[in-house]
């Protein structure tokens, strides 16, 4: 950085300022490149992922179109509003949040100019590691308590997708998520990784207060509803509560047997 600064002293003020900002950006890019490049690459077993319904990585299933649509819509909304972070939750457990999150993440990974970080903040029932076939995930609790560095947490898939899985469940998860330190850790993560999209796979909304506790750290929420499992009441309650506190990007209707025409 010092050599760049020394060079900039010779150029005109305007140019210098342009150059400076360019330099800053370049530094940022570089920093990001360095940060991203230093991540441990993630090797995935496509067959295993397919059997776990993660289909957008190799586009083996025609259903990946739905995630591509979702990706495009999410990206557009984020860019329009200048948002980056999105929590993915559901009214109850088992609606397929993690699958949706992973699929969305891999779909985003196909978008070359977009860097995506997916964090498994489902501290009660972490499942990203299992679904993605990650071998030795770090502890999210340790990361949130700054005991583990971000580089040790995240694993990189391709150039632009980093996944932070969780190795074990956490007991007082809501308190941990609501902790001021956590907000700082998140800000630090954003600062260092500079992701275009930051996805949080959260716990389900209704049984616990994890999501509510973490909401100040996110720009928007995606609700995953499982067709024929989520009731009207659950979906409506969840949506109302979230809409009161943050921006709801929309509802993803998962496992829908009836096509969009229905």
């Amino acid at each position, binding site marked *: 950085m010092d050599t760049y600064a020394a060079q900039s002293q010779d150029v005109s003020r305007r140019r210098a300022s342009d150059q400076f900002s360019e330099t800053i950006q370049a530094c940022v890019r570089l920093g990001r490149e360095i940060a991203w490049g230093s991540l441990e690459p993630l090797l995935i077993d496509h*067959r295993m992922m*397919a*059997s*776990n*319904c993660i*289909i957008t990585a190799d586009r*083996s*299933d025609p*259903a990946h179109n*739905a*995630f591509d*649509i*979702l990706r495009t*819509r*999410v990206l557009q909304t984020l860019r329009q509003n200048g948002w980056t972070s999105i929590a993915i939750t559901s009214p109850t457990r088992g609606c*397929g949040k993690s*699958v*949706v999150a992973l*699929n969305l993440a891999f779909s985003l990974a196909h978008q070359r100019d977009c860097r995506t970080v997916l964090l498994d903040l489902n501290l009660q029932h972490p499942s990203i590691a299992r679904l993605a076939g990650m071998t030795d995930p770090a502890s999210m609790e340790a990361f949130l308590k700054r005991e583990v560095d971000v580089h040790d947490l995240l694993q990189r898939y391709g150039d632009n997708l980093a996944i932070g899985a969780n190795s074990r469940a956490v007991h007082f998860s809501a308190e941990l998520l609501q902790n001021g330190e956590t907000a700082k850790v998140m800000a630090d993560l954003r600062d260092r990784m500079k992701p275009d999209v930051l996805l949080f796979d959260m716990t389900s909304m209704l049984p616990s207060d994890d999501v509510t506790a973490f909401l100040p750290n996110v720009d928007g929420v*995606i609700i995953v*509803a499982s*067709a*024929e*499992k*989520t*009731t*009207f*009441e659950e*979906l*409506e309650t969840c*949506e109302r509560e979230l809409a009161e506190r943050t921006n709801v*990007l*929309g*509802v*993803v*209707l*998962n*496992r*829908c*047997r*009836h*096509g*969009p*025409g*229905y």
Partner: protein
Amino acid sequence: MGDTDVRFYLSILIRRLPYMLAIAASVLLLAVVATRVLPTVYSANARILAENPQIPAELARSTVPTGPAEQLQIVQQQITARDNLLTLAEHLGIYEGSDTPPAPEDIVADMRSRIGFEQTPLDEPGGAIVFNVAFEASDPVVAANVANEIAAMILGRNQQQRTDRAGNTLKFFDQEVAKLGDNLNRIEAEILKFKNANKDTLPENLEFRRSQQSLLQGRLATLEQEEAELRTRRSNLIVAYAGAGQLSGTTPITPEQQMLAELNRALAEQLAIFSESSPSIKALRARINSLQSRLVLSQPKSEEKTDRVKADDASKSFGLDLQLSDIDDRLQSITREKTTIAQRVSDLTKSITATPASETALNSLERNRENVQTQYNSAIARRAEASTGEQIEMRADGGRFSLLEEATPPTSPISPRGKRILMLGAVLGAGLALGYVVLLELLNRTVRRPAEVVRLLEAYPLAVVPNIRPTAYRRRAPKRRSVFARLSAAVLPTLAAAAFYHVPLKIAFERLLGGLSGT
């Protein structure tokens, strides 16, 4: 929207198809089991023809005017009477096969439920009627036997009833005739007695008595006339004797004396006809009186003469005395006869006066007799009619029942009706399956399709992710197996229950069938 809705519901149906098929199949299986488990029931039919009278009612009326339908109803009630059913069951040994003899109430109820009477009127109204008598039993031969027995009972009872009725009618009229005959005899005896007691005042010889009375009165007049004549003759005789001088001392009869005698005679004649107060009698009496007074003036002279001849009177007046005594005898007999006649006339008058009273009494008696007679006559006529009716009934020419068709042991059972039960099972199964799906739909409160999300949140879903099937099918297999496990878990206990509790099942099924068919 409608089109997509139909497709949506169709897709739901298709998804639930395994369950629906399972339900329908198990119900159908139940039906099959029911057809196997349910006891077979045979129904035998005997047909009875009930005809109307063969002799037209206008010519001769039967004494049993009830129509065949009513007669059948009466006989039906008699046959389904408790005692009769018990006798029938015992006689035919219907319940001999059962382990424990059922209670009489159960026998009666069961028999009643098994006996069927059915009436099929032929086309023309008032014409013959065909009755069906059916009996249900588990053995076709028993069913036929009982049906025939009941038919025979109907025929026998009908015949017996009809003849009984006809006989009763005849008997009634017989009694009536006898009673009225007795009445008649009694009244006639009374009349005879009355007539005997009042034979003099009976109105029938009133005319005779009246004529006799007038005859007697005529006779009385004749007698008085004769009496007057005799008196005149007597005085004439005396005058004649005196005038002829045969009597000493007697003076010849003066013209005055002669005239006096004539006047006296005339007076006697007139008295026979006229009453004392009539003017002619008065005039006569006046003349007699004046003549007598004149004669008295000239009497002394004649009296002297009389005294003078008195001495030799006796000898000379012998002939005169003879004549006079003759006349006096006659006069006396006339007086006696007159008394008798007067007595008889007064008797007759009395009897004639009493006649109207006895006539009234007699009339009332006779009116009474006439009334009884009329009743008696009509009773006789009716008895004749009743006798005819009885003859008709005896010869069975009145409306009668005849066995049209004997019951034969049926070859195929009426229950269980396999096809019907199976059809019912199929329909019921389909209904239940459909009901199951509809119920699930009604109870389903989950989000199913994007349209529902739109309706709920008024926003289109961000994305609709189809059901992703994992490429490795390891997880799918146990799920499918579980469906079969559930199916068999549902069906097998049912079958087991059907096998072990087929008796209550049978009752339940019979009730179900009964309720459905509405019998």
